[in-house]
């Protein structure tokens, strides 16, 4: 990239950068290279697979609830489950996860109840009050305003560093999110203080109807890290082994004081953007069909089967158990009584200002209103 192309002594190279990509598993589950140690651990491998499949079963249930009018708009994670699993299996309990809105697998791993996710999309704030005693309790809730959660990582990581803690922040967002200034202001500044942050971009090919190649002029999303002098790397996000390996490496770098990294995980959104979307309007069906070949669940299952870690009986048991868990979460959600209307004032401030008491009283006096959920 030279503006002046003549081969003059006036022009010298002052920096150069390379972008790498990592993938261990072929779509059929066969290995490209010798995988990291954790893949040899039967229990870990089984746990990762179980989380992935359970998440898929939950997702299916959530979509079904929405389709039958029992849930509000829901953002499915179909096809992207491996990334959440990799996050869940890479972060330490003490670390802080700042999610976008699709990483349910990671949230489940950190203690968010399945029911809570339904509650949130069902229009109940109580779904974001993750249980005390779990890592999720100190994690951030889902963030709907795209990319705006990413710069919170700067403050969170700064606090950790100020206190001399060896903790790490992982902030995730989508490919579309990388177009927002909020994303960039975080990436541009993280290295100033050498903060323990991993920025994760789940590049699922689409931001609603915009294909990722029309989102920016950049050839990769990984290279957006270069704008902040940050290690940026791509990984096959449908390969849970590679994703966990790269994330773990980034997390450990951060933990060891080596500063921030950025990871672009390539995946694919197999579902509509949300249940309110109809992707057939803008997306060729053939692309979706082809993408199913790269399905992360299928791929990792083939791998653990080949390792002798998994068999059909295991699969049947997991499907039954995961389906039941999703069903139980749905029942729990559906049985919840809506919050009292006046609860809309309960957490506005630490304590309600006197000037607002009459409003709370008015809402309480009216009681539940027709037309509500």
């Amino acid at each position, binding site marked *: 990239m030279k503006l002046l192309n003549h081969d003059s002594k006036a022009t010298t190279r002052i920096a150069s950068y390379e972008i790498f990509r990592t993938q261990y598993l072929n779509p059929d589950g066969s290995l490209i290279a010798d995988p990291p140690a954790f893949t040899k651990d039967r229990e870990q491998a089984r746990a990762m697979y179980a989380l992935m499949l359970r998440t898929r079963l939950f997702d299916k249930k959530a979509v079904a609830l929405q389709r039958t009018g029992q849930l509000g708009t829901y953002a499915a994670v179909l096809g992207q489950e491996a990334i959440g699993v990799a996050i869940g299996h890479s972060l330490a309990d003490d670390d802080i996860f700042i999610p976008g809105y699709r990483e349910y697998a990671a949230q489940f791993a950190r203690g968010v109840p399945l029911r809570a996710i339904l509650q949130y999309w069902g229009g109940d704030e109580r779904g974001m009050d993750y249980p005390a005693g779990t890592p999720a309790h100190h994690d951030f809730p889902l963030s709907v*305003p*795209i990319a705006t959660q990413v710069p919170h990582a700067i403050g969170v990581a700064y606090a950790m560093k100020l206190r001399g803690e060896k903790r790490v922040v992982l902030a995730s967002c989508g490919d579309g999110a990388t177009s927002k*200034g909020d994303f960039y202001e975080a990436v541009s500044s993280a290295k100033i203080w050498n903060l323990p942050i991993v920025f994760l971009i789940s590049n699922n090919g689409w931001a*609603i109807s915009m294909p990722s190649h029309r989102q920016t002029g950049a050839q990769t999303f990984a290279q957006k890290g270069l704008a902040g002098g940050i290690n940026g790397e791509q990984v096959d996000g449908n390969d849970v082994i590679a994703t966990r390996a790269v994330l773990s490496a980034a997390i450990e770098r951060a933990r060891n004081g080596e500063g921030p990294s950025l990871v672009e995980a390539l995946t694919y959104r197999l579902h509509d953007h949300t249940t309110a979307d109809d992707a057939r309007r803008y997306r060729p069906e053939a692309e979706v069909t082809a993408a199913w070949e790269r399905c992360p669940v299928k791929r990792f299952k083939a791998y653990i089967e080949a390792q002798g870690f998994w068999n059909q009986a295991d699969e049947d048991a997991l499907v039954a158990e995961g389906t039941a868990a999703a069903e139980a979460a749905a029942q729990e959600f559906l049985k919840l009584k809506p919050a009292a209307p006046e609860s809309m004032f309960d957490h*506005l401030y630490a304590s309600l200002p006197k000037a607002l008491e009459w*409003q709370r009283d008015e809402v309480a006096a009216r009681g539940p209103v027709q*037309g*509500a959920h």
Partner: protein
Amino acid sequence: MARTVQKSGVLPVPNITLIEAVNLAMASEMRRDPNVVVLGEDIGRNGGVFRATLGLLDEFGEGRVIDTPLAETLVAAMAIGLSTQGIKAVAEIQFSGFLYPCVDQVVNHAARYRNRTRGRMSCPLVIRAPNSGGIHAPEHHSESLETTFAQMPGLRVVCPSSPARAYGLLLAAIRDPDPVIFLEPTRLYRLFKQPVEDDGEALPLDSCFIDRSGADLTLVSWGAMMHDTRLVADQLAEEGISAEVIDIATLKPLDMATILASVAKTGRCVIVSESPRAGGWASEVAANLAEHGLLSLFAPVMRVAGYDTVMPLAQLERSYIPDTDRILREVRKLFEMAPK
């Protein structure tokens, strides 16, 4: 949803929804004026998340129907850049809660280039967004942003309340030589239909609409809350109370003359707004009444408004949004204090 492509004259006037009227106004003005473009997130092939731009890509092509990256500051800034070059940019922001990243560009630039350069430059742009709640949408999709912008010098702020007004006011907004924030009532998008003729006639941007005349009470509202306000007037009529109903529609600049004239006649006023009460545009109307209408008031000026708390998620949104019950209660209080 079928596109409404309607030439005026011979064909029957179609009965359309508010969102179809928005679509019609854009299509109609894009046919008329080749300098009009639309831009925003998912507005091309997808036709916008509410389908406001449906069919525009096919008719006008990628050049004039611009799918932008996911960056609201950029959408506003790009609209500014386009408009300084005489391209009338009609930008869509997907949901009201995502208007905030536009505030800096809109306030510090769109609203100021004309003033800053003593008229050398100008920003004839429109920023459209769905506004207010009631459709069980996710977090940040149901906010009411009109006051945030109406406060700002150099802007116009428009909130239509019917298909016909959406059509006429959007035409006016696009043709206006200055920046217009056009906030569409999400829950009225498909609530009812109206015959709307594609006659290219714009509505005025500086006058309230008197929806119906009345003698006993002035009801003032705009946008989505106009629907409940009209229902209240119906109910009151049955009870023998004659309410004058005013749709502000063009909040900024505010046509207080019409409201003052009405209150001079009725002596009672209730202002209905969905945005939070404290510092809302209802307060601006009430403050003007306190200054210029005090002597004609028989009773306090009442505001029925959204509460001063965060817009709740879907399960409680109906407890937040004013409804006919809440409006009627305030009206009855008024008539208790100052009987007819």
